[in-house]
């Protein structure tokens, strides 16, 4: 039972939401774990679009009364339960959407007003900790627009933090300095990954490790993949990853993409095991 938070402290988009979706999907397919993917954004439909087409049919309107208020999913539905202090690990699962039964569920982001979002973000940490009692792993997509104190609280309560970086030299140096100073995150429970990675760039992994990080250990990367980009808009991410399992050709960019995701997932699992052994 662990909490893994994906976040990005840059102004630039590094694909942190896409990355955590990719990692969560890969883990759910290949590992026998119950994973909850939790969104902390406001009015962001990316997670939903990755797995489902927009359903417009409202059969409940044709055949019966509208019960949409009680049947709301995601943080929005959980909001009322939170406001009345009735949240418990069992209740959280009633508000998630199932991608893979007993493997991957998603707690969708809030679709509402900013004032509602500001009230509910105070409870994100509590939800995360409660969900951790029920799920084997809670993967949190930390939105950069959250209040700083809330971000800090979520990061503090996370077992492992995955920081997404852009492929810019200055940004990487800045993050590494912050890491040394342990400003926001500690060395021990943090991993780094370059999002939307382009291997043809001068700032490829080898050069970054040698010249910027000045260490042998290579940094994780999540390559940009156009099939994944398209699937994330068409609700086909799960099918795509199931197809990727059959890839063998190492020269294939899709194989490389999938391999990197697998490598990151493996590192996450290993690091969590290490950390839990240290705590014991």
């Amino acid at each position: 039972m662990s909490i893994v938070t994906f976040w990005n402290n840059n102004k630039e988009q590094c694909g942190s939401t896409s990355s955590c979706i990719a990692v969560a999907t890969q883990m759910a397919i290949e590992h026998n774990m119950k994973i909850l993917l939790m969104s902390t954004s406001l009015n962001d439909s990316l997670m939903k679009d990755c797995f489902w087409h927009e359903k417009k049919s409202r059969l409940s309107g044709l055949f019966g009364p509208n019960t949409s208020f009680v049947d709301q999913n995601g943080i929005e539905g959980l909001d009322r339960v939170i406001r009345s202090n009735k949240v418990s690990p069992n209740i959280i699962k009633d508000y998630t959407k199932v991608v893979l039964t007993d493997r991957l569920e998603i707690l969708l982001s809030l679709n509402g007003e900013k004032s509602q979002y500001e009230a509910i973000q105070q409870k994100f940490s509590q939800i995360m900790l409660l969900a951790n009692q029920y799920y084997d792993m809670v993967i949190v997509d930390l939105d950069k627009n959250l209040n700083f104190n809330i971000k800090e609280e979520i990061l503090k309560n996370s077992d492992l933090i995955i920081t997404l970086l852009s492929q810019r030299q200055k940004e990487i140096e800045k993050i590494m300095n912050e890491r040394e100073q342990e400003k926001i995150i500690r060395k021990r429970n943090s991993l780094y990954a370059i999002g939307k990675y382009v291997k043809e760039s001068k700032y490829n992994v080898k050069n970054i490790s040698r010249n910027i990080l000045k260490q042998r250990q290579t940094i994780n990367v999540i390559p940009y993949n156009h099939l994944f980009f398209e699937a994330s808009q068409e609700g086909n991410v799960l099918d795509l990853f199931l197809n990727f399992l059959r890839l063998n050709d190492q020269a294939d960019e899709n194989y490389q993409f999938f391999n990197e995701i697998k490598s990151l997932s493996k590192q996450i699992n290993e690091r969590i095991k290490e950390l839990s052994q240290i705590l014991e």
Partner: protein
Amino acid sequence: MTISNIILSLVVLGLMGAVIYYYINSKKNAEVVTEIDVDDKTYTLEKMIEFIKRRLDEITKVNLYDIGLSEEELKRRKSKKYELKKALKGCTYGDVNDKKYVKELIFDLLAKEYGVSEMNISKAIPFDVPSLLTAQDKFDILIYIYKREFGYEALGELINKYKLDEFKYIQGETKPCYVITEEEISDIYEKENIVLSFTDKLNVVVQRIYQQYKGYSSIDEVRDMNIDGVSGGVSGLPESFISQVAQTDSTDYLAQIQEHKVQRACDSIWIMFHRKINSYGMFIFWNRSRIKKGLSKYIQIQ
């Protein structure tokens, strides 16, 4: 059957098919909206209570098997429906979390479905015209504001701040007593100079609807406060006595009752606070059935 007839039949069938397809598609794509006829009385308390009762009834009685859900979705919806039913039952036994849940649901239904807004909320309680507010309205607003700050010490804070638990003489009484009158509540309301946002106003309306629908009537919020006890239906003549008097045809006595010169049992509530018993002169239970509902599960502490 000639070729032209066949072609014509095919064209007609094709047109019919297209119309049916378009109709089904538009039904699928249309938002399901509960239509509310808006007139002068739409945003009154009575109409809103009717709406809430009807909607909660619909929500709890919907047959989930008719909707064609997947197994997982069906399990989740059944669980949510069960939670709501549990909350609706639990709130009548005084569970504060269940009460909060039901009130939050009523809030959402009124704000998002019924269309209550800043423009029409004053039709339920006249927030915009303080002179039209009854003592009950003012007290409800005061308790709401104080509760936001002091939680369940709200009533205690109010009583202590304005020394409402002191012995006083009231008009028509020869002996001093512990009583909180309508005039005192009106004075306090003026002194507090309260400014309410729309959310605050809606919360006050929600509480009023809740206490009439599921709560303990006038003592609903008072009951939750950190006080020693609440008592009601002991302020005067019970209604059974009044009906007996009616049978003896004592018209003079009946006239006095009608003019409120004779105290009725439901004319006020009593609270025990710091071992003093105060009467809230302005609360009326309205009738015996409300007293029964309000106090049937309550034990008086002296």
